[in-house]
């Protein structure tokens, strides 16, 4: 089926949070979605106007002494879309193509994501235009520290809490925390999340997104009055999200019949031995499924997995895996989006027409940001939970969030994706209304 990109570009499609075309500007896409949701919610025009602009934008020129002695100046951004519901929250990415509109769009999406799971955060995003693979670790460290110093006026544990994103990691978060600590002459670990466990990071963060996906899938099955033991599941992507989701869903009683990664897929209609596969992946030099063999297990492709005959499909790899070309052939009754943006706009329309239930990424993979919130809470209290406590609270928030999105969507008679976005915008709007306009 041919993708009719031109036809859909000029109309908003709430909830699809990725640019559909390379020519499309993410910020414009996000605004189009917001406008549509505002119309549906009959949002106050003043509040709509507030949400159409990021609250605060900071562009910084970050000079860095490179290893060879010369000075290079990098452009950095920190954009706070909304702090109506609490301190802003969002990652920092290092990439040569980071730009203002992309960061604006991602910041707004963080506002919606935090609102949909009801954690007391607004949305933000940051980035530095650089190619980290061309820089030494020392150069990255110096750039991170200078960037931190330059955005310090607007970040803080009660203002804006950064986190890792593309090409940033726990080490970079540790440098941010240390820089603020040095400049404020006190230990400040609650200014950033995604830190190493040794510096106030939270246990359970690594598994959080996959665990959240599994919880949401289980709640969906309950609402559909389906027994877990009668449910077959296919998981595309066997990394941090997919492998954890598969493991937990199998522990819950589901039959995982298909998994795949970049090296190919495995299929067994009787159910795969997930612990055995996990042992194989742990021992594989590249952490892949490649080479796994067991009686009754057939090899098949990623493409086959997406259209396999299962009850629940969990895309947990890259964006745009379910597109107009394969959406008509998807056999799963339910899709739980573990990855960010795995469904294209056209595919989403096809799935809707075919009455396939899609739990959108904004809800399904929010376990990560929820445990980031727990990290912040623990840092603020200087009291650290064990993993069972983290998982118990994650369970509570994910179950509640799913129920709220489900009920809201039923009440509004809209698909879950649209319902989740509407609920999020509604919550932010109510917070703005309750606070009033200063002065």
């Amino acid at each position: 089926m041919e993708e009719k990109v031109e036809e859909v570009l000029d109309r908003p499609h709430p909830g699809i949070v990725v640019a559909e075309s390379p020519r499309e500007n993410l910020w414009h896409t996000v605004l189009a979605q917001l406008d549509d949701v505002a119309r549906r919610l009959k949002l106050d025009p003043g509040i709509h106007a507030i949400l159409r602009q990021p609250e605060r934008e900071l562009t910084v020129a970050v000079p860095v002494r490179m290893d060879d002695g010369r000075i290079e100046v990098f452009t950095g951004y920190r954009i706070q879309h909304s702090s109506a519901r609490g301190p802003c929250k969002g990652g920092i990415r290092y990439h040569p193509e980071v730009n203002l509109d992309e960061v604006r769009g991602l910041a707004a999406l963080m506002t919606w994501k935090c609102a949909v799971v009801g954690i007391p955060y607004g949305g933000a995003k940051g980035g530095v235009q650089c190619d980290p693979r061309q820089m030494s670790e020392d150069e990255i460290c110096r750039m991170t520290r200078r960037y931190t110093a330059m955005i310090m006026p607007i970040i803080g544990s009660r203002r804006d809490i950064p986190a890792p994103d593309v090409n940033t990691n726990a080490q970079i978060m540790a440098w941010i925390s240390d820089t603020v600590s040095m400049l404020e002459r006190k230990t400040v670990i609650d200014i950033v999340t995604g830190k190493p466990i040794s510096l106030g990071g939270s246990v359970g963060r690594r598994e959080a997104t996959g665990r959240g996906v599994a919880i949401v899938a289980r709640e969906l099955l309950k609402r559909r009055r389906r027994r877990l033991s009668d449910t077959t599941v296919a998981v595309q992507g066997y990394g941090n999200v997919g492998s954890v989701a598969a493991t937990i869903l199998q522990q819950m009683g589901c039959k995982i019949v298909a998994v795949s990664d970049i090296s190919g897929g495995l299929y067994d209609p009787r159910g795969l031995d997930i612990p055995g596969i996990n042992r194989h992946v742990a021992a594989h030099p590249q952490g892949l499924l490649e080479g796994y063999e067991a009686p009754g297990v057939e090899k098949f492709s990623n493409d086959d997995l997406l259209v396999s005959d299962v009850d629940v499909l969990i895309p947990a790899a890259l964006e745009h895996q379910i597109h107009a070309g394969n959406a008509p052939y998807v056999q799963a009754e339910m899709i739980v989006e573990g990855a960010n943006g795995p469904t294209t706009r056209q595919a989403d329309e096809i799935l809707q027409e075919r009455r396939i239930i899609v739990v959108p990424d904004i809800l399904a993979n929010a376990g990560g940001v929820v445990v980031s919130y727990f990290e912040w809470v623990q840092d603020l209290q200087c009291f650290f939970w064990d993993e069972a406590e983290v998982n118990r609270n994650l369970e509570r928030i994910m179950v509640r969030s799913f129920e709220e999105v489900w009920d809201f969507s039923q009440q509004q008679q809209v698909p879950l994706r649209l319902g989740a976005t509407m609920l999020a915008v509604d919550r932010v709007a109510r917070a703005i209304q309750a606070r009033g306009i200063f002065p």
Partner: protein
Amino acid sequence: MADSTMKQLGMVDLGFTAPAVQLPDATSAAEQVLSDALAFCAQKMRFDSCETALSRLRQGDREACTYCFYSVARRVAEFLGAWDENVKAVYICDYDATPEDLCFAETVQSPPVHLLVRVDRKTSALNSLLAALDRALVQKYAELTAMNRLACFLDAQVVDDADVEKRIGYGTLLSSIHHRPLQVWSR
């Protein structure tokens, strides 16, 4: 063959062309690419010699592997760009790991090096060159590291404008928001 000539002869462009020139020496190119990669790694990690970089590469040191494979990507890209004027840009992309994996999981940096090669038009000549380069890199990498021969060292996916614009196959990745490929070379 020029388009006008093809039209005059009533020929149809099937979207690929046979190699018109002899392929360059992939073996010596691979040798140079790997040697440059060790030098780049040694420079970035401030090692006193390429031997130290090689030793860290053999141990699977994540940082050393990242620098080496990035340098491989750049050198291969430059080589492709110099040899084939159809090549517009080359990107490196870890599409076997999500950003979540890269942030929070212990991912292993190891070959294959994933490249996206953006071209004006796909040609069988470029495919042949990429295959030859991969074979040579597999051979030279095994010799260099004294490790087992890999099935594949260079995973290069060729995409054209239509793939990118219509988001077909690997063309999708070039406009990805969450899995941003890094451009290592452009014309």
